[in-house]
Protein backbone atom coordinates (compact mmCIF):
# COMPACT_ATOMS: atom_id res chain seq x y z
CA UNK A 1 0.00 0.00 0.00
CA UNK A 2 2.68 2.34 1.09
CA UNK A 3 4.69 1.57 -1.96
CA UNK A 4 1.83 2.32 -4.33
CA UNK A 5 1.23 5.79 -2.91
CA UNK A 6 4.96 6.37 -3.05
CA UNK A 7 4.93 5.56 -6.75
CA UNK A 8 2.07 7.89 -7.37
CA UNK A 9 3.81 10.72 -5.57
CA UNK A 10 6.87 9.95 -7.61
CA UNK A 11 4.91 10.18 -10.82
CA UNK A 12 3.43 13.52 -9.86
CA UNK A 13 6.87 14.78 -8.95
CA UNK A 14 8.36 13.75 -12.27
CA UNK A 15 5.47 15.12 -14.24
CA UNK A 16 5.87 18.43 -12.43
CA UNK A 17 9.58 18.41 -13.00
CA UNK A 18 9.14 17.71 -16.72
CA UNK A 19 6.81 20.67 -17.04
CA UNK A 20 9.25 22.97 -15.31
CA UNK A 21 12.18 21.73 -17.33
CA UNK A 22 10.36 22.01 -20.64
CA UNK A 23 9.20 25.47 -19.83
CA UNK A 24 12.57 26.76 -18.78
CA UNK A 25 14.26 25.12 -21.73
CA UNK A 26 11.75 26.75 -24.05
CA UNK A 27 12.31 30.10 -22.40
CA UNK A 28 16.06 29.97 -22.70
CA UNK A 29 16.17 28.67 -26.23
CA UNK A 30 13.52 30.96 -27.60
CA UNK A 31 15.77 33.97 -27.53
CA UNK A 32 18.10 32.97 -30.35
CA UNK A 33 17.17 29.68 -32.00
CA UNK A 34 20.06 27.52 -33.00
CA UNK A 35 20.94 28.30 -36.59
CA UNK A 36 20.67 25.83 -39.46
CA UNK A 37 24.14 25.98 -40.91
CA UNK A 38 24.57 25.94 -44.69
CA UNK A 39 28.23 25.05 -44.52
CA UNK A 40 29.73 21.76 -43.37
CA UNK A 41 30.08 23.07 -39.82
CA UNK A 42 29.80 20.36 -37.22
CA UNK A 43 28.95 21.19 -33.68
CA UNK A 44 31.58 20.16 -31.17
CA UNK A 45 30.70 18.37 -27.94
CA UNK A 46 31.35 19.74 -24.48
CA UNK A 47 34.49 18.08 -23.19
CA UNK A 48 34.02 16.13 -19.98
CA UNK A 49 37.38 15.02 -18.58
CA UNK A 50 36.68 12.27 -16.05
CA UNK A 51 37.83 12.35 -12.41
CA UNK A 52 40.78 10.25 -11.32
CA UNK A 53 39.63 6.74 -12.07
CA UNK A 54 38.18 4.55 -9.33
CA UNK A 55 41.33 2.51 -9.87
CA UNK A 56 43.27 5.27 -8.23
CA UNK A 57 41.08 5.12 -5.14
CA UNK A 58 41.33 1.36 -5.04
CA UNK A 59 45.09 1.55 -5.47
CA UNK A 60 45.30 4.00 -2.56
CA UNK A 61 43.51 1.57 -0.30
CA UNK A 62 45.85 -1.22 -1.34
CA UNK A 63 48.90 0.98 -0.74
CA UNK A 64 47.47 1.90 2.65
CA UNK A 65 47.06 -1.73 3.64
CA UNK A 66 50.55 -2.62 2.42
CA UNK A 67 52.12 0.32 4.22
CA UNK A 68 50.32 -0.63 7.43
CA UNK A 69 51.49 -4.21 7.14
CA UNK A 70 55.07 -3.27 6.38
CA UNK A 71 55.30 -0.71 9.18
CA UNK A 72 53.85 -3.20 11.65
CA UNK A 73 56.43 -5.71 10.49
CA UNK A 74 59.25 -3.20 11.02
CA UNK A 75 57.94 -2.19 14.44
CA UNK A 76 57.20 -5.58 15.94
CA UNK A 77 59.11 -8.28 14.06
CA UNK A 78 62.15 -6.48 12.69
CA UNK A 79 62.45 -3.84 15.41
CA UNK A 80 63.96 -1.54 12.83
CA UNK A 81 63.79 2.19 13.45
CA UNK A 82 65.36 2.72 10.08
CA UNK A 83 62.62 0.75 8.36
CA UNK A 84 59.97 2.77 10.13
CA UNK A 85 61.73 5.99 9.16
CA UNK A 86 61.82 4.91 5.53
CA UNK A 87 58.11 4.13 5.64
CA UNK A 88 57.43 7.58 7.08
CA UNK A 89 59.36 9.14 4.22
CA UNK A 90 57.37 7.08 1.76
CA UNK A 91 54.05 8.13 3.28
CA UNK A 92 54.93 11.81 3.26
CA UNK A 93 55.84 11.54 -0.39
CA UNK A 94 52.99 9.30 -1.51
CA UNK A 95 49.99 10.11 0.71
CA UNK A 96 51.21 13.65 1.29
CA UNK A 97 52.74 15.20 -1.77
CA UNK A 98 51.54 12.86 -4.52
CA UNK A 99 47.99 12.25 -3.36
CA UNK A 100 47.94 15.76 -1.91
CA UNK A 101 46.78 14.67 1.52
CA UNK A 102 43.10 14.08 0.78
CA UNK A 103 41.22 11.96 1.87
CA UNK A 104 43.15 11.08 5.00
CA UNK A 105 42.10 8.83 7.82
CA UNK A 106 41.99 11.72 10.27
CA UNK A 107 39.44 13.53 8.16
CA UNK A 108 37.47 10.36 7.44
CA UNK A 109 36.12 10.51 11.00
CA UNK A 110 33.87 13.28 9.75
CA UNK A 111 32.60 11.37 6.73
CA UNK A 112 31.77 8.44 8.96
CA UNK A 113 29.94 10.64 11.47
CA UNK A 114 28.03 12.35 8.70
CA UNK A 115 27.03 8.97 7.29
CA UNK A 116 26.05 7.61 10.71
CA UNK A 117 23.81 10.53 11.63
CA UNK A 118 22.49 11.58 8.24
CA UNK A 119 20.93 8.86 6.12
CA UNK A 120 21.16 11.10 3.04
CA UNK A 121 24.93 11.34 3.19
CA UNK A 122 26.68 8.96 0.82
CA UNK A 123 30.05 7.78 2.06
CA UNK A 124 32.44 6.54 -0.62
CA UNK A 125 33.81 3.05 0.02
CA UNK A 126 37.38 4.29 -0.33
CA UNK A 127 36.90 6.78 2.50
CA UNK A 128 35.31 4.11 4.67
CA UNK A 129 38.35 1.90 4.10
CA UNK A 130 40.64 4.75 5.12
CA UNK A 131 38.69 5.01 8.36
CA UNK A 132 38.48 1.33 9.25
CA UNK A 133 41.82 -0.13 8.11
CA UNK A 134 44.12 1.82 10.44
CA UNK A 135 41.85 1.08 13.40
CA UNK A 136 41.93 -2.65 12.64
CA UNK A 137 45.72 -2.65 12.32
CA UNK A 138 46.02 -0.70 15.54
CA UNK A 139 43.81 -3.21 17.29
CA UNK A 140 46.23 -5.88 16.14
CA UNK A 141 49.66 -4.23 16.37
CA UNK A 142 49.42 -0.85 18.11
CA UNK A 143 49.62 2.56 16.49
CA UNK A 144 51.86 1.58 13.60
CA UNK A 145 49.61 3.75 11.45
CA UNK A 146 50.79 6.77 13.42
CA UNK A 147 54.40 5.59 13.33
CA UNK A 148 54.80 5.97 9.61
CA UNK A 149 51.64 5.71 7.51
CA UNK A 150 49.64 8.81 8.46
CA UNK A 151 51.13 11.61 6.34
CA UNK A 152 50.38 14.19 9.04
CA UNK A 153 52.18 12.20 11.69
CA UNK A 154 55.01 11.21 9.38
CA UNK A 155 55.86 14.77 8.38
CA UNK A 156 56.01 15.80 12.05
CA UNK A 157 58.13 12.78 12.82
CA UNK A 158 60.60 13.58 10.07
CA UNK A 159 61.17 17.16 11.23
CA UNK A 160 61.46 16.24 14.93
CA UNK A 161 65.04 17.44 15.37
CA UNK A 162 65.40 18.91 18.84
CA UNK A 163 62.35 17.93 20.86
CA UNK A 164 62.01 19.45 24.31
CA UNK A 165 60.51 17.54 27.20
CA UNK A 166 56.93 18.55 27.92
CA UNK A 167 56.13 18.18 31.65
CA UNK A 168 53.87 15.23 32.31
CA UNK A 169 50.99 17.24 33.77
CA UNK A 170 51.03 19.68 30.85
CA UNK A 171 51.04 16.80 28.41
CA UNK A 172 48.00 15.31 30.13
CA UNK A 173 46.12 18.60 30.13
CA UNK A 174 46.93 19.51 26.53
CA UNK A 175 46.08 15.97 25.48
CA UNK A 176 42.49 16.58 26.55
CA UNK A 177 42.06 18.91 23.58
CA UNK A 178 42.00 15.87 21.33
CA UNK A 179 38.77 14.71 22.92
CA UNK A 180 37.20 18.13 22.67
CA UNK A 181 38.27 18.45 19.05
CA UNK A 182 36.93 14.98 18.27
CA UNK A 183 33.62 15.82 19.91
CA UNK A 184 33.21 19.02 17.98
CA UNK A 185 34.37 17.47 14.72
CA UNK A 186 31.68 14.79 15.06
CA UNK A 187 28.99 17.25 16.12
CA UNK A 188 29.71 19.63 13.25
CA UNK A 189 29.95 16.85 10.66
CA UNK A 190 26.85 15.06 11.91
CA UNK A 191 24.77 18.24 11.72
CA UNK A 192 26.09 19.00 8.23
CA UNK A 193 27.64 22.25 9.46
CA UNK A 194 31.28 21.98 8.51
CA UNK A 195 34.24 19.66 8.27
CA UNK A 196 36.36 21.34 10.93
CA UNK A 197 39.26 18.90 10.69
CA UNK A 198 39.67 19.62 7.00
CA UNK A 199 39.34 23.33 7.47
CA UNK A 200 42.05 23.44 10.12
CA UNK A 201 44.38 20.79 8.75
CA UNK A 202 47.81 22.31 9.43
CA UNK A 203 49.75 20.38 6.82
CA UNK A 204 47.50 20.19 3.78
CA UNK A 205 48.79 23.45 2.35
CA UNK A 206 52.34 22.07 2.51
CA UNK A 207 51.33 18.90 0.70
CA UNK A 208 49.52 20.93 -1.93
CA UNK A 209 52.25 23.56 -2.03
CA UNK A 210 49.57 26.17 -1.73
CA UNK A 211 50.51 29.74 -2.40
CA UNK A 212 48.08 31.41 -0.08
CA UNK A 213 49.98 33.53 2.39
CA UNK A 214 47.87 32.94 5.50
CA UNK A 215 47.94 29.18 5.02
CA UNK A 216 51.69 29.14 4.50
CA UNK A 217 52.21 31.09 7.70
CA UNK A 218 49.97 28.71 9.66
CA UNK A 219 51.53 25.56 8.22
CA UNK A 220 55.05 26.86 8.44
CA UNK A 221 54.50 27.78 12.06
CA UNK A 222 53.18 24.35 12.86
CA UNK A 223 56.03 22.64 11.08
CA UNK A 224 58.52 24.85 12.90
CA UNK A 225 56.89 23.97 16.20
CA UNK A 226 57.22 20.28 15.33
CA UNK A 227 60.99 20.67 15.33
CA UNK A 228 60.99 21.59 19.00
CA UNK A 229 57.88 19.84 20.29
CA UNK A 230 57.54 16.21 19.28
CA UNK A 231 54.41 15.69 17.18
CA UNK A 232 52.34 18.58 18.53
CA UNK A 233 49.35 17.87 16.28
CA UNK A 234 49.32 14.17 17.12
CA UNK A 235 49.61 14.60 20.85
CA UNK A 236 47.40 17.57 21.49
CA UNK A 237 44.94 17.93 18.63
CA UNK A 238 44.45 14.92 16.39
CA UNK A 239 40.86 13.72 16.83
CA UNK A 240 41.53 10.36 15.20
CA UNK A 241 44.24 9.64 17.76
CA UNK A 242 41.55 9.25 20.41
CA UNK A 243 40.11 6.26 18.59
CA UNK A 244 43.57 4.94 17.72
CA UNK A 245 44.61 5.28 21.37
CA UNK A 246 41.67 3.18 22.51
CA UNK A 247 42.40 0.52 19.92
CA UNK A 248 46.07 0.52 20.81
CA UNK A 249 45.36 0.13 24.52
CA UNK A 250 43.51 -3.06 23.63
CA UNK A 251 45.91 -4.19 20.94
CA UNK A 252 46.75 -7.85 20.51
CA UNK A 253 50.43 -7.21 20.12
CA UNK A 254 52.49 -4.12 20.65
CA UNK A 255 56.03 -3.00 20.12
CA UNK A 256 58.19 -3.36 23.24
CA UNK A 257 61.19 -1.30 24.22
CA UNK A 258 63.34 -4.28 25.04
CA UNK A 259 63.63 -7.37 22.86
CA UNK A 260 64.16 -9.45 26.00
CA UNK A 261 63.21 -8.92 29.62
CA UNK A 262 63.69 -5.51 31.14
CA UNK A 263 66.58 -5.28 33.62
CA UNK A 264 65.36 -1.96 34.99
CA UNK A 265 68.62 -0.32 33.97
CA UNK A 266 66.77 2.97 33.36
CA UNK A 267 68.72 3.69 30.20
CA UNK A 268 65.57 4.16 28.14
CA UNK A 269 63.79 6.26 30.75
CA UNK A 270 64.20 9.59 28.95
CA UNK A 271 64.45 8.23 25.43
CA UNK A 272 60.91 8.88 24.28
CA UNK A 273 60.42 12.38 22.90
CA UNK A 274 56.66 11.83 23.12
CA UNK A 275 56.74 11.07 26.84
CA UNK A 276 55.09 7.72 26.21
CA UNK A 277 57.16 5.42 28.42
CA UNK A 278 55.59 4.06 31.62
CA UNK A 279 58.03 3.70 34.46
CA UNK A 280 57.90 0.77 36.89
CA UNK A 281 55.82 1.60 39.93
CA UNK A 282 57.08 1.17 43.50
CA UNK A 283 55.93 -1.99 45.22
CA UNK A 284 54.07 -0.24 47.98
CA UNK A 285 50.74 1.38 47.28
CA UNK A 286 51.04 5.16 47.40
CA UNK A 287 48.02 5.45 49.68
CA UNK A 288 46.42 2.93 52.00
CA UNK A 289 43.73 0.67 50.62
CA UNK A 290 40.99 2.28 52.67
CA UNK A 291 41.96 5.76 51.66
CA UNK A 292 42.13 4.72 48.04
CA UNK A 293 38.77 3.04 48.30
CA UNK A 294 37.22 6.16 49.73
CA UNK A 295 38.61 8.27 46.92
CA UNK A 296 37.23 5.91 44.31
CA UNK A 297 33.83 5.98 45.95
CA UNK A 298 33.79 9.76 45.76
CA UNK A 299 34.83 9.69 42.13
CA UNK A 300 32.17 7.13 41.34
CA UNK A 301 29.58 9.47 42.80
CA UNK A 302 30.97 12.46 40.93
CA UNK A 303 31.08 10.75 37.54
CA UNK A 304 27.33 10.88 36.79
CA UNK A 305 27.31 14.49 37.91
CA UNK A 306 30.11 15.31 35.47
CA UNK A 307 28.24 13.59 32.66
CA UNK A 308 24.98 15.36 33.42
CA UNK A 309 26.59 18.74 33.89
CA UNK A 310 28.52 18.37 30.65
CA UNK A 311 25.44 17.34 28.71
CA UNK A 312 23.31 20.10 30.14
CA UNK A 313 25.95 22.75 29.61
CA UNK A 314 26.64 21.90 25.99
CA UNK A 315 23.00 21.48 25.07
CA UNK A 316 22.46 25.08 26.26
CA UNK A 317 24.97 26.26 23.70
CA UNK A 318 22.84 25.15 20.76
CA UNK A 319 22.11 28.71 19.65
CA UNK A 320 25.77 29.68 19.62
CA UNK A 321 26.96 26.57 17.82
CA UNK A 322 24.16 26.30 15.31
CA UNK A 323 25.01 29.79 13.98
CA UNK A 324 27.95 28.12 12.27
CA UNK A 325 25.49 26.19 10.12
CA UNK A 326 24.89 27.99 6.81
CA UNK A 327 21.11 27.51 6.95
CA UNK A 328 20.81 28.87 10.47
CA UNK A 329 23.14 31.72 9.63
CA UNK A 330 21.06 32.61 6.59
CA UNK A 331 17.80 32.37 8.55
CA UNK A 332 19.22 34.78 11.11
CA UNK A 333 20.20 37.27 8.42
CA UNK A 334 16.82 37.04 6.73
CA UNK A 335 14.98 37.53 10.01
CA UNK A 336 17.14 40.54 10.87
CA UNK A 337 16.60 42.09 7.44
CA UNK A 338 12.87 41.54 7.64
CA UNK A 339 12.72 43.12 11.05
CA UNK A 340 14.70 46.15 9.91
CA UNK A 341 12.91 46.38 6.57
CA UNK A 342 16.16 46.24 4.59
CA UNK A 343 16.01 43.19 2.33
CA UNK A 344 19.02 42.01 0.33
CA UNK A 345 21.97 43.33 2.34
CA UNK A 346 24.23 40.37 1.64
CA UNK A 347 24.87 38.15 -1.35
CA UNK A 348 23.43 35.22 0.60
CA UNK A 349 20.13 36.92 1.38
CA UNK A 350 19.82 38.35 -2.12
CA UNK A 351 20.33 34.89 -3.56
CA UNK A 352 17.85 33.34 -1.18
CA UNK A 353 15.22 35.95 -1.96
CA UNK A 354 15.73 35.50 -5.70
CA UNK A 355 15.18 31.75 -5.40
CA UNK A 356 11.62 32.17 -4.18
CA UNK A 357 11.76 29.66 -1.33
CA UNK A 358 9.25 30.75 1.33
CA UNK A 359 10.91 32.17 4.43
CA UNK A 360 8.90 29.81 6.62
CA UNK A 361 10.56 26.81 4.99
CA UNK A 362 13.95 28.30 5.78
CA UNK A 363 12.99 29.02 9.37
CA UNK A 364 11.64 25.50 9.91
CA UNK A 365 14.81 24.06 8.48
CA UNK A 366 16.94 26.27 10.70
CA UNK A 367 14.88 25.27 13.72
CA UNK A 368 15.47 21.63 12.84
CA UNK A 369 19.23 22.19 12.72
CA UNK A 370 19.12 23.96 16.07
CA UNK A 371 17.26 21.03 17.61
CA UNK A 372 19.88 18.65 16.31
CA UNK A 373 22.50 20.82 17.93
CA UNK A 374 20.61 20.64 21.20
CA UNK A 375 20.48 16.84 21.28
CA UNK A 376 23.99 16.64 19.85
CA UNK A 377 25.14 18.99 22.58
CA UNK A 378 23.80 16.56 25.20
CA UNK A 379 25.83 13.74 23.68
CA UNK A 380 28.95 15.84 23.28
CA UNK A 381 28.78 17.20 26.82
CA UNK A 382 28.10 13.79 28.31
CA UNK A 383 31.03 12.34 26.37
CA UNK A 384 33.41 15.04 27.56
CA UNK A 385 32.13 14.69 31.14
CA UNK A 386 32.78 10.96 30.93
CA UNK A 387 36.29 11.50 29.58
CA UNK A 388 37.16 13.98 32.32
CA UNK A 389 35.80 11.57 34.90
CA UNK A 390 37.83 8.69 33.51
CA UNK A 391 40.96 10.85 33.51
CA UNK A 392 40.36 11.60 37.18
CA UNK A 393 39.99 7.89 37.83
CA UNK A 394 43.23 7.15 36.05
CA UNK A 395 45.04 9.73 38.15
CA UNK A 396 43.82 8.06 41.31
CA UNK A 397 43.93 4.44 40.27
CA UNK A 398 47.07 2.57 41.12
CA UNK A 399 48.17 0.41 38.21
CA UNK A 400 51.14 -1.78 38.81
CA UNK A 401 53.84 -1.57 36.17
CA UNK A 402 56.71 -4.01 36.56
CA UNK A 403 59.14 -2.79 33.89
CA UNK A 404 59.82 -0.01 31.44
CA UNK A 405 57.29 -0.33 28.71
CA UNK A 406 55.52 1.91 26.23
CA UNK A 407 52.21 3.32 27.37
CA UNK A 408 50.17 1.60 24.72
CA UNK A 409 47.62 4.34 24.38
CA UNK A 410 50.17 7.10 23.85
CA UNK A 411 53.01 5.27 22.11
CA UNK A 412 53.33 6.04 18.40
CA UNK A 413 55.36 2.88 17.73
CA UNK A 414 58.11 5.00 16.24
CA UNK A 415 60.89 2.76 17.56
CA UNK A 416 63.14 5.54 18.81
CA UNK A 417 63.54 3.85 22.18
CA UNK A 418 64.87 0.55 20.76
CA UNK A 419 68.49 1.60 20.57
CA UNK A 420 68.62 2.77 24.18
CA UNK A 421 68.07 -0.71 25.53
CA UNK A 422 71.31 -2.67 26.16
CA UNK A 423 69.44 -5.87 25.36
CA UNK A 424 68.80 -4.47 21.92
CA UNK A 425 72.52 -3.94 21.45
CA UNK A 426 73.11 -7.55 22.40
CA UNK A 427 70.45 -8.67 19.96
CA UNK A 428 71.95 -6.67 17.12
CA UNK A 429 75.46 -8.00 17.87
CA UNK A 430 74.12 -11.52 17.85
CA UNK A 431 72.45 -10.88 14.57
CA UNK A 432 75.69 -9.60 13.16
CA UNK A 433 77.72 -12.49 14.51
CA UNK A 434 75.40 -14.96 12.97
CA UNK A 435 76.33 -13.83 9.52
Amino acid at each position, binding site marked *: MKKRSGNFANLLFWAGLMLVVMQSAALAQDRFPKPDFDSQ*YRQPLTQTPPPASPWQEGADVVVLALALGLTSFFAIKKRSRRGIWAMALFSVIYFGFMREGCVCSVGSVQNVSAALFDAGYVIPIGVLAFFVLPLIFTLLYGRTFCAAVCPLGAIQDLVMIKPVKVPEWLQEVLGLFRYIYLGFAILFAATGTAFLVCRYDPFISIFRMSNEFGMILFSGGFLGLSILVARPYCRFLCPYSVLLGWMSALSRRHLSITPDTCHLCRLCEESCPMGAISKPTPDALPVSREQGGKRLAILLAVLPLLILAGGWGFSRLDLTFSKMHPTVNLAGQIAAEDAAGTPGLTLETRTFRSQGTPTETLFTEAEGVRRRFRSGGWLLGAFLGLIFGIKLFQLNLFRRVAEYQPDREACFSCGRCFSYCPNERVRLDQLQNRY
Partner: protein
Amino acid sequence: MADDPKDLKRRDFLREGLRTVSALALGGIGGMLGARAGSWEMVWQLDPEKCVQCERCATYCVLTPSAVKCVHAYDVCGYCQLCGGYHRPGAKTQDTAAENQLCPTGAIKRTYVENPYYEYTIIEENCIGCAKCVQGCGSFGNGSLYLQVRHDRCLNCNECSIATVCPSGAFTRVPADRPYILKGKQGESL
Protein backbone atom coordinates in the same frame (compact mmCIF):
# COMPACT_ATOMS: atom_id res chain seq x y z
CA MET B 1 53.45 -8.89 45.00
CA ALA B 2 51.54 -12.07 45.67
CA ASP B 3 48.46 -10.96 43.79
CA ASP B 4 50.43 -9.89 40.75
CA PRO B 5 49.82 -12.83 38.43
CA LYS B 6 46.13 -12.80 39.21
CA ASP B 7 46.05 -9.09 38.61
CA LEU B 8 47.72 -9.49 35.28
CA LYS B 9 45.48 -12.30 34.23
CA ARG B 10 42.44 -10.25 35.02
CA ARG B 11 43.84 -7.37 33.04
CA ASP B 12 44.55 -9.59 30.06
CA PHE B 13 41.12 -11.07 30.22
CA LEU B 14 39.49 -7.67 30.34
CA ARG B 15 41.59 -6.46 27.47
CA GLU B 16 40.75 -9.46 25.36
CA GLY B 17 37.04 -8.98 25.98
CA LEU B 18 37.14 -5.31 25.11
CA ARG B 19 39.21 -6.06 22.05
CA THR B 20 36.56 -8.42 20.77
CA VAL B 21 33.90 -5.80 21.42
CA SER B 22 35.93 -3.17 19.53
CA ALA B 23 36.52 -5.50 16.62
CA LEU B 24 32.80 -6.22 16.44
CA ALA B 25 31.98 -2.51 16.63
CA LEU B 26 34.42 -1.71 13.84
CA GLY B 27 33.04 -4.54 11.76
CA GLY B 28 29.52 -3.34 12.45
CA ILE B 29 30.20 0.24 11.42
CA GLY B 30 32.14 -0.88 8.36
CA GLY B 31 29.49 -3.36 7.32
CA MET B 32 26.55 -1.07 7.91
CA LEU B 33 28.01 1.93 6.11
CA GLY B 34 29.64 -0.26 3.48
CA ALA B 35 26.31 -1.79 2.56
CA ARG B 36 24.89 1.71 2.15
CA ALA B 37 27.94 3.21 0.50
CA GLY B 38 26.54 2.98 -3.00
CA SER B 39 29.50 4.42 -4.84
CA TRP B 40 33.19 3.86 -4.75
CA GLU B 41 33.83 7.57 -5.01
CA MET B 42 31.86 10.81 -4.94
CA VAL B 43 33.02 14.05 -6.55
CA TRP B 44 31.95 17.68 -6.26
CA GLN B 45 29.87 19.30 -8.97
CA LEU B 46 27.81 22.45 -9.25
CA ASP B 47 24.32 22.64 -10.62
CA PRO B 48 24.29 25.31 -13.34
CA GLU B 49 20.55 25.84 -12.87
CA LYS B 50 21.13 26.95 -9.29
CA CYS B 51 24.30 28.98 -9.80
CA VAL B 52 23.82 32.74 -9.54
CA GLN B 53 27.26 33.67 -10.96
CA CYS B 54 28.53 35.26 -7.76
CA GLU B 55 32.19 34.97 -8.82
CA ARG B 56 33.15 33.09 -5.66
CA CYS B 57 34.07 30.03 -7.70
CA ALA B 58 37.02 32.03 -9.00
CA THR B 59 38.41 32.96 -5.60
CA TYR B 60 37.52 30.27 -3.08
CA CYS B 61 38.89 27.13 -4.74
CA VAL B 62 42.06 25.86 -3.06
CA LEU B 63 43.61 25.89 -6.51
CA THR B 64 44.69 29.07 -8.26
CA PRO B 65 43.35 29.34 -10.88
CA SER B 66 40.17 27.62 -9.80
CA ALA B 67 39.21 24.08 -10.84
CA VAL B 68 35.86 25.53 -11.87
CA LYS B 69 35.78 26.59 -15.50
CA CYS B 70 33.28 27.85 -17.95
CA VAL B 71 32.02 25.24 -20.42
CA HIS B 72 29.91 25.66 -23.51
CA ALA B 73 26.77 23.76 -24.51
CA TYR B 74 27.12 24.24 -28.25
CA ASP B 75 23.67 22.89 -29.05
CA VAL B 76 22.07 25.54 -26.83
CA CYS B 77 24.10 28.38 -28.36
CA GLY B 78 22.61 30.79 -30.89
CA TYR B 79 26.02 31.49 -32.48
CA CYS B 80 25.21 35.19 -32.20
CA GLN B 81 27.32 37.85 -33.84
CA LEU B 82 26.86 40.02 -30.76
CA CYS B 83 27.42 37.62 -27.86
CA GLY B 84 26.30 38.62 -24.38
CA GLY B 85 28.98 36.40 -22.95
CA TYR B 86 31.77 37.53 -25.22
CA HIS B 87 31.20 41.24 -25.70
CA ARG B 88 31.32 43.83 -22.98
CA PRO B 89 27.98 45.65 -22.71
CA GLY B 90 28.21 48.78 -24.82
CA ALA B 91 31.14 47.50 -26.83
CA LYS B 92 31.72 49.87 -29.73
CA THR B 93 32.35 47.26 -32.37
CA GLN B 94 31.32 43.63 -32.47
CA ASP B 95 34.79 42.31 -33.13
CA THR B 96 37.56 40.56 -31.22
CA ALA B 97 39.35 43.68 -30.01
CA ALA B 98 40.53 43.13 -26.42
CA GLU B 99 38.74 46.20 -25.10
CA ASN B 100 35.43 44.79 -26.32
CA GLN B 101 35.75 41.49 -24.51
CA LEU B 102 33.92 40.75 -21.31
CA CYS B 103 36.26 37.99 -20.16
CA PRO B 104 39.02 39.49 -17.99
CA THR B 105 41.56 36.94 -19.22
CA GLY B 106 40.50 36.72 -22.85
CA ALA B 107 39.67 33.04 -22.42
CA ILE B 108 36.93 32.92 -25.06
CA LYS B 109 37.86 32.30 -28.66
CA ARG B 110 35.54 33.64 -31.32
CA THR B 111 35.63 31.96 -34.74
CA TYR B 112 33.68 32.83 -37.82
CA VAL B 113 31.45 29.99 -39.01
CA GLU B 114 29.29 31.52 -41.75
CA ASN B 115 27.41 34.73 -42.08
CA PRO B 116 26.23 35.85 -39.53
CA TYR B 117 27.23 33.10 -37.14
CA TYR B 118 30.18 32.79 -34.81
CA GLU B 119 31.37 29.92 -32.68
CA TYR B 120 32.59 30.59 -29.17
CA THR B 121 35.08 28.26 -27.48
CA ILE B 122 36.53 28.42 -23.98
CA ILE B 123 40.30 28.30 -23.76
CA GLU B 124 40.31 26.46 -20.49
CA GLU B 125 43.90 27.26 -19.52
CA ASN B 126 43.00 30.94 -19.36
CA CYS B 127 39.58 30.65 -17.72
CA ILE B 128 39.51 31.52 -14.02
CA GLY B 129 35.88 30.55 -13.43
CA CYS B 130 34.68 34.06 -12.63
CA ALA B 131 31.31 33.50 -14.33
CA LYS B 132 31.20 36.98 -15.92
CA CYS B 133 30.50 35.43 -19.31
CA VAL B 134 28.00 33.05 -17.80
CA GLN B 135 26.10 35.98 -16.41
CA GLY B 136 26.25 37.82 -19.73
CA CYS B 137 25.10 34.84 -21.74
CA GLY B 138 22.36 34.07 -19.24
CA SER B 139 20.97 37.59 -19.26
CA PHE B 140 21.23 38.40 -22.96
CA GLY B 141 21.55 35.05 -24.67
CA ASN B 142 20.51 31.43 -24.46
CA GLY B 143 22.48 30.54 -21.36
CA SER B 144 24.77 28.15 -23.20
CA LEU B 145 27.84 29.22 -21.23
CA TYR B 146 27.90 27.81 -17.72
CA LEU B 147 30.27 26.72 -14.98
CA GLN B 148 31.39 23.19 -14.16
CA VAL B 149 33.98 21.70 -11.82
CA ARG B 150 36.61 20.28 -14.16
CA HIS B 151 37.64 16.91 -12.83
CA ASP B 152 41.00 16.80 -14.55
CA ARG B 153 41.94 19.69 -12.25
CA CYS B 154 39.78 19.34 -9.12
CA LEU B 155 41.55 17.74 -6.15
CA ASN B 156 38.22 16.44 -4.84
CA CYS B 157 38.75 17.95 -1.40
CA ASN B 158 36.90 16.20 1.38
CA GLU B 159 35.19 19.52 2.04
CA CYS B 160 35.14 21.66 -1.10
CA SER B 161 36.08 25.22 -0.13
CA ILE B 162 33.72 26.69 -2.68
CA ALA B 163 30.81 24.59 -1.47
CA THR B 164 31.13 26.16 1.97
CA VAL B 165 30.60 29.66 0.57
CA CYS B 166 28.37 29.11 -2.47
CA PRO B 167 25.35 31.31 -1.76
CA SER B 168 22.96 29.33 -3.94
CA GLY B 169 23.72 25.85 -2.64
CA ALA B 170 24.71 24.80 -6.14
CA PHE B 171 27.50 22.48 -5.00
CA THR B 172 26.69 18.84 -4.29
CA ARG B 173 28.51 15.56 -4.36
CA VAL B 174 27.71 13.35 -7.32
CA PRO B 175 28.76 9.78 -8.14
CA ALA B 176 32.15 9.75 -9.87
CA ASP B 177 30.81 7.85 -12.88
CA ARG B 178 28.40 10.71 -13.65
CA PRO B 179 30.58 13.62 -12.70
CA TYR B 180 29.00 16.46 -14.73
CA ILE B 181 25.66 18.28 -14.72
CA LEU B 182 25.50 19.29 -18.35
CA LYS B 183 23.14 21.56 -20.22
CA GLY B 184 21.58 20.76 -23.56
CA LYS B 185 21.32 17.43 -25.37
CA GLN B 186 24.51 16.08 -23.87
CA GLY B 187 23.02 16.60 -20.44
CA GLU B 188 19.83 14.78 -21.35
CA SER B 189 21.66 11.78 -22.71
CA LEU B 190 23.42 11.27 -19.39
